[in-house]
């Protein structure tokens, strides 16, 4: 498939940096959640009844991870020989990185959900 015919999400450059996008989103969300709770508790003694900021941040993180996973998924489907992608070709290297990114997106998605759970069950700063 030539470059001209590829859709925008298939033309994106896959690198080591894009590989770590999903777990980086997880870590930013995690740090944000921890700081939000720690600073709220230390400075005011409570956090919001319905945490709008926290919910928005979580939805944003999940969306970013899902988008990154979707792009990766599309790129694993680029035409080429069947798996395993262990040839020394451009397309196999691309599909390997895309597959790894997709897997990391899955783990990061679960990770963000795990981080969000305590806020559902714990309502105060004790």
């Amino acid at each position, binding site marked *: 498939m030539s470059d001209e015919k590829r859709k925008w999400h298939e033309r994106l450059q896959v*690198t*080591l940096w894009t*590989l*770590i996008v999903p*777990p*980086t989103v*997880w*870590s930013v969300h*995690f740090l944000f*959640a*921890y700081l939000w*709770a*720690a*600073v709220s*508790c*230390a*400075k005011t003694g409570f*956090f919001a009844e319905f945490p709008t900021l926290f919910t928005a941040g979580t939805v944003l993180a999940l969306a970013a991870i899902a988008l990154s996973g979707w792009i990766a998924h599309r790129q694993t489907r680029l035409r080429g020989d069947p798996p*395993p*992608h*262990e*040839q*020394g070709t*451009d397309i*196999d*290297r691309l599909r*390997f*990185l895309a*597959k*790894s990114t997709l*897997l*990391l997106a899955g*783990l*990061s998605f*679960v*990770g963000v959900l*795990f*981080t969000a*759970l*305590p*806020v559902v*069950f*714990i309502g*105060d*700063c*004790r």
Partner: protein
Amino acid sequence: MSLHDQDDPALRAAQEQRLREVWAPPKGLFLRWTDTNNNQVGNWYVLTAFAFMLFAGVLALIMRTQLAVPDNDLVGPGTFNQLFTLHGSVMMFLFAVPMFEAVSIILLPQLLGARDLPFPRLSAFGYWSFLLGGVFVSGSIFFDAAPDGGWFMYPPLTTRTDLSGLGADIWMLGLSFIEVSSVAAAVELIVGVLKCRPPGMRLNLMPLYAWYILVVAVMILFAFPPLIAGDVLFEMERLLDWPFFDASRGGDPLLWQHLFWIFGHPEVYIVFLPSIALFAMLVPTFARRHLLGYPWIVLAAVGTAFLSFGLWVHHMFATGLPKISLGFFSAASEAVAIPTAVQIFVFIVTLWAGRVVWSTPLLYATGSLAIFVIGGLTGVMVALAPFDWQAHDTYFVIAHLHYVLIGGTLMPLFAGLYYYWPLVTGKKLSDRLGRTAFWLVFVGANLCFFPMHLSGLEGMPRRVFTYPADLGLGGLNLASTIGSFVIAAGVAVIVLDLARSPWRPRSPRNPWQAGTLEWLAHPEDENWGIRSIPLIESRYPIWDQEDFVRKVDEGRYFLPDAEEGRRETIITSVLDARPVSVIRLGAPSWKPMLTALALGGVFILTTYHLYWPALLSGTATLAMVLWWLWTGTAEIPEKPCKPIGHGMELPLYISGSASPGWWAMFITMMADATAFSGLVFGYFFFWTRHEAFPPPEMASAPGMVWPLSALALGLAGWLTTIAAREVHARGGVGMARALLLFGLATSIVGVPAGLAGPWFSGMDPTAHSYPAIVWTLTIWTCLHAAVAAIMLAYVLARSLAGRMTPSHDADIRNVAVYMHFFALTAVVAYATIGLFPEVA
């Protein structure tokens, strides 16, 4: 040269003779220690780390003997404190982490078909630092001066000089020195994996060991620096009475716990992942098939690396933090079980799908997985805060961590030892002794540590030198003690096996019939690493590529010669391993050892409060480093390019982001920036712990004027460096020199400008944590300004000496990377101390 040329045996013999001469180790009683070749330095490194393991094991045996029966009096409480502190510290800092670095220094160049890693002298420097610091820390117990505050050194016990002696300083400064060598190894390994792969070894063909090492080395960059930041604060408190951890003066002992465990938990994975990486090499060999699920291993390694930085507070569940915070860390601690399990399943599935050869290394591998899984399951238990409150500081935790470390680090290393011994020595170890040792270690580990789950749940506390008989734990403790001696017997059998190895017959080349590159190593032990650097088309080239070994051996691939009498290797691109250049590697030299000695002097003399000699030693270190850089780096080659075979010509000089030096600077500065962020974390941590921070009586200090002036000077230095780099690249040498001079001046003036803020507002760092942390951030930034000045002066001198020209500009490009990070440091530091008090 074409393939055809290599058909001539006389030519091949001449090439081999040249390679042999170039890579010949230095001879002579003293000179041999100047070697920098990875196989030599790696061997010293492994042997030293192994010796420290045996030493720490003996300490454990003394502890277990003391605990064998109730009310025992073999050792007193003071000695017992030193024993457990040193046992933990040595096993972690002097065995587990250095062992991974050592094994990687031996294996990685072989795995990547490189003649050596890109900075062989840096490896040697790391080794000498490790040896010196390790002997210093370990030796302290013979003078009854060993650290005795637990391997995590919690203040205030350890920061109050009336409660703890010299041992705390020895721990803090001795191990800081070791941390320097770990960061050095991380730089070496990251650049090695990214830039020294053979042509064709794209990211999807890289051996999984290299993936793991890349991930772990990056983890070191983010895990060790917070501890270095903690060490800085800790020694400031001990030596200068700056109250970071003293609650009566606005400090907080929990800050240390945060900084320590931000290091301490990733550390667990830093020692686990490289050991499990050995499985990724030996499992396919003995399953006789490619490893299944290659991207799943990458998921596991990268996923574990990230999650491991979200676990640190699970060591602090009992400190009274809000439950919501505990919840986040508990959740992440459960989530890390997912990638950990994934890699174990990948190994099991590969074995299942293959035709298994039941060798001794595989026996260790499977046995260690069994032990590791038990430790992992108790890990899931203690990751739950309510359970942890029950088990905290009991023997249950000791059982958990030893199952994890024996199953996840020690036994995999033994598997690697039996697997790779023929690679290093050309001789196999004994299967009979190896299997005997395995069963002794396996049974011993379970007998020693399983009863600790029970004694822990029944109330046996950690770090207590004895226990009363009516606690009813005599039987369980005796079982643990017997188990510990059974483990020791197993290790003794391994030592015996190693000692008998020189008298064994040589094994054939590649005795396990493995498929990966490292097994190209010659049994005759040539020092050149690899005869010619191959073109890689498969993950298991020895299995899959036709005539592969013969072609490598006959020099039919790249760089089969050393015409100019220099040690060389090929640099390739990060993603697709396209050849970029040939670099000249450092030859044997005294410089790494002498630099390590000088730097060691700084740490050791400071321990004994000998500040003037320490300053002298520091100056000597700086002089050594500059001499090393001036004579050994960014050398302008005698010709621009050289042929590497198959009609390819590669440049001998590269600069900027394609070059290893640029990456080394970038990686080092990442570590530096992480340490700095640890200090900034301290500032904001204090802010959360106080009603008003800065305290009202100090709210106007250090003011805005001086910090913002220093910031302006720092940014001016940064901008002029960038301008100088650009002008220089376009041929404006004179203008570039003028700009460098201006940048040099602003950097120098930036030092007093930065210090003026806290100085003129009369901030007394011993009075309260606020002035102490402001001074610390200021001094850190000013030190960086001073280093910037030294670097700019160095670049100017290189230009004036004709060692840097517009087409050979690696020096200024690397310094520009430093200046980017310096500018970031200045912005964050001066904005924090100058502007934050206005909005707080």
